[in-house]
């Protein structure tokens, strides 16, 4: 394989000051702005009325008993299980006991569930709007410039992405235009935000999308609109019933004696 001659392009050093630094600065500042906008727009969780809260907490109580049964002694666990199962099956904790057995209401018609969706929409908007704005800003002002050379080679497929707006057929795909610097910033600035804003910031758009994917389904599953609490209770009662109880204190004497070395 013959070594291709290295392409050199003489560029105005002013490109650095007028394209590279402005884009980087704008990206960083947008991240900071997005962080504070997300904090300001976050609505405090709505106060639930007593019945709803009781319904949710009693279900969580059942889950806690089920997952930590090994710390309870046998009689204590059995007493809890009996009380919870009886209450679940009789529907004592239900918010509206008279609605048992009916189909759950349509989630779209319930005003309280719209709040949650609005919150998600706001989060999405805070992410989409700045990105669209910045991309169109870069396209409008900086398209067609070659500003930098990547330090690693790429295949020819990347050419259309990295050199959008630069119609030069034979140029090495390592040369990148301003829009590809934008993409590098988009993915790589997370560590910068870590130093600026602390590690649990919500500045980087790419990270926020990942978080939303994780958090969303889980929350919606638990207490989301459209789930039937009665069915959840019955399932939880069944889960409690099948537990084979043992305690961490079983055979503790033997473990202690093994630990003692003469």
């Amino acid at each position, binding site marked *: 394989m013959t070594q291709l001659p290295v392409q050199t392009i003489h560029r105005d050093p002013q490109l650095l000051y007028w394209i590279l630094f402005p884009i980087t600065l704008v990206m960083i500042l947008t991240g900071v702005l997005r962080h504070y906008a997300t904090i300001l727009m976050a609505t405090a969780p709505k106060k639930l009325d007593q019945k709803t809260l009781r319904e949710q907490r009693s279900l969580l109580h059942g889950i806690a008993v089920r997952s930590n049964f090994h710390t309870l002694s046998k009689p204590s666990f059995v007493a809890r299980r009996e009380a919870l199962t009886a209450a679940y099956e009789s529907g004592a904790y239900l918010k509206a006991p008279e609605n048992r057995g009916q189909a759950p209401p349509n989630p779209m018609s319930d005003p309280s569930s719209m709040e949650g969706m609005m919150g998600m929409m706001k989060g999405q908007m805070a992410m989409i709007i700045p990105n669209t704005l910045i991309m169109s800003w870069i396209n409008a002002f900086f398209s067609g410039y070659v500003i930098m050379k990547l*330090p690693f*080679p790429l295949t020819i497929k990347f050419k259309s992405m990295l050199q959008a707006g630069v119609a030069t057929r034979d140029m090495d795909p390592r040369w990148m235009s301003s829009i590809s610097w934008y993409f590098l910033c988009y*993915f*790589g600035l997370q*560590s*910068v935000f870590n130093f600026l804003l602390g590690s649990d910031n919500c500045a980087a758009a790419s990270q926020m999308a990942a978080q939303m994917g994780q958090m969303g389904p889980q929350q919606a599953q638990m207490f989301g609109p459209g789930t039937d609490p009665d069915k959840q209770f019955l399932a939880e009662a069944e889960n409690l019933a099948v537990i084979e109880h043992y305690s*961490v204190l079983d055979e503790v004497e033997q473990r202690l004696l093994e630990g003692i070395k003469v």
Partner: protein
Amino acid sequence: MLSERDLQLSPLVPESIQHNSRSLYNLQSLTASLFGVAAGILGLESYSGFLFYLAFTLLTSVLFYAVRVAPSSASPSSGKAGSGGGLLDTSRYFRTTLEFWTGGVLSGLAGYILTWTLFFGIVRA
């Protein structure tokens, strides 16, 4: 690997593990950016740049292990918590050993490429 029962006998607090992972992640993203600066100034290209990153990330992990994890987890006086702990065992502070040794490579890569490109562009190209 610990069984479920062992975990119940000597439980790990999820919040503490989260804190540990987060401080490790912060360290790794910070050092990844700094390695990018170094690689850009040195003018490393293609494979040598990625090898530089890999080597120094692993070096960071080793140093982190040697300075912060090993003294308390490998010493015999630490008792049975975390099941003793042989060499290169991180189960006392982190959930999985594999995550400790390789997790930083991917999470810091984007930051590394960013600063590498930036400084390579400023200094060399």
